């Protein structure tokens, strides 16, 4: 058996030179920008107002506690959205007169909730529902704000699922039906698993967006990172706490976005590999 062709050995120079050049140009460009900014006349004031280390340290414990609230809401909402949106998408895909009410409900739901700004939903649910004082239901803004996020985002996620279900080849449905699977079984065993796999990258993108949007709960008084930062700002007239909150959000969203890229790339590779 012939041996696989040996890889041509690259000299150290050939290997590292491109990296050295890219690193150098990045350092030069960003260095220049930083120099321009810090030499500006207003820089000391900006630094004092926004990047005041003492203020950041002082605000950090409260902002961080708030941030944990954000991430808890995010994690719970994520699970709830993944499930509820799938239910909506399945309702929407059902055919036959028996299922017509579910289908109509799903279409109306998606149209309505996709058309209303998230902020408005949060205000409506966060202030409105507790004001009704319905016995037996929680009255906290945290709970109802979270519900608003779940209901709104589910409308988007349902559409994502739906596109994934429609992308599953018709032959799959025909095969499932020909094997005797009912409409419901066809969905559960054949269509939905493929659809979920198809739309995972798109769903993760929604998850990244939600990661930031949970900060909307601050407008109904939930003491999340943004709210805590605002409280600090109002007390000290210094905006560094907002920067602290921003950094915390970045620390969560950037890895999440990278992870999404990674999943999308894997998905791409899988599609390319498929021969038929």
């Amino acid at each position: 058996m012939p041996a696989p062709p040996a890889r041509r050995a690259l000299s150290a120079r050939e290997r590292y030179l491109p990296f050295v050049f890219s690193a150098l140009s990045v350092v030069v460009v960003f260095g220049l920008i930083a120099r321009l900014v810090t030499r500006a006349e207003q820089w000391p004031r900006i630094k004092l107002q926004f990047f005041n280390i003492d203020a950041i340290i002082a605000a950090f414990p409260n902002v961080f506690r708030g941030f944990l609230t954000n991430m808890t809401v995010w994690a719970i909402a994520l699970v709830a959205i993944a499930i509820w949106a799938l239910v909506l998408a399945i309702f929407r895909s059902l055919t036959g007169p028996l299922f017509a009410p579910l289908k109509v409900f799903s279409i109306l739901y998606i149209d309505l909730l996709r058309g209303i700004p998230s902020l408005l939903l949060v205000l409506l649910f966060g202030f409105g529902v507790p004001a009704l004082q319905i016995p037996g239901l929680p009255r906290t803004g945290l709970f109802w704000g979270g519900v608003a996020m779940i209901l709104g985002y589910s409308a988007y996620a349902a559409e994502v699922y739906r596109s994934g279900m429609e992308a599953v080849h018709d032959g799959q449905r025909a095969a499932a039906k020909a094997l005797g699977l009912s409409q419901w079984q066809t969905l559960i065993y054949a269509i939905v698993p493929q659809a979920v796999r198809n739309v995972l990258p798109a769903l993760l993108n929604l998850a990244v967006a939600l990661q930031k949007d949970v900060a909307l709960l601050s407008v109904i008084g939930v003491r999340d990172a943004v709210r805590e930062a605002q409280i600090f700002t109002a007390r000290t007239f210094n905006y560094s706490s907002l920067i602290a909150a921003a950094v915390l959000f970045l620390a969560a969203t950037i890895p999440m976005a990278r992870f999404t890229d990674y999943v999308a790339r894997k998905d791409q590779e899988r599609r390319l590999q498929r021969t038929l």
Partner: protein
Amino acid sequence: MYRVRIDNLTKYYGNTLVLDAVNLAVKEHEVVCLIGASGSGKSTLLRCVNKLVPFDHGTIELDGVSIEDEKFKNSNELHKRVGIVFQAFNLFPHMNVLDNITLAPRKVHGVSRRESEKHAHELLQLFGMPEFATSYPEQLSGGQQQRVAIIRTMATNPHVLMLDEITAALDPELIGGVLKIIKDLAEQGMTMIIVTHEMGFAREVADRVCFLEGGRILEEGPPQKLFSTPTHPRTQQFLQRIIEAGRL
């Protein structure tokens, strides 16, 4: 009594007449091959029999019972009787071979997982692919995928097996393995309706060959007769073209 009996079957797609009063009756253990040019209605005929598409006039009976009868209202009952394998295999890509094969027995026929997997392994053994039980469809060649698709349908123990150009998407060197399975099934007495462009295969395996054109069965008969002395000019033309293409 016939396994499948089609009377006066007529179907339109919109205003296009696709099946024009087709009559076809298939006895137990009989193998019927449908041949004909592209668009002559062969696939549509099969799809009507297992209710994948509705039809406009005529009747289709399985073992003497109309498929529109109350008994087949629940279409599962129908699909327990008639299995179909498609040109494009349509295996479920997210399931391994074993799960592909046992899904319908478990979920439709109520067979236990243990029982159905045992049966699946037997079938894989029988059809010469015991080592592929845990492979995923994308890891198999087209020919192997098609053999799994046939096994998947056979695992539901259908009374009638319908095959729609199951080798049309395969490379020539993969066709033999798939056709071998069908010949084995024919020898075991499986009742089959086979749409095929492989005339040599049809000649070997069929008890009867039907030539379709424009949604009608123009001519039918035993393969020796139909292939050597076709009476209808259209059949002669069709076979002539096939011979010229080197497929007979």
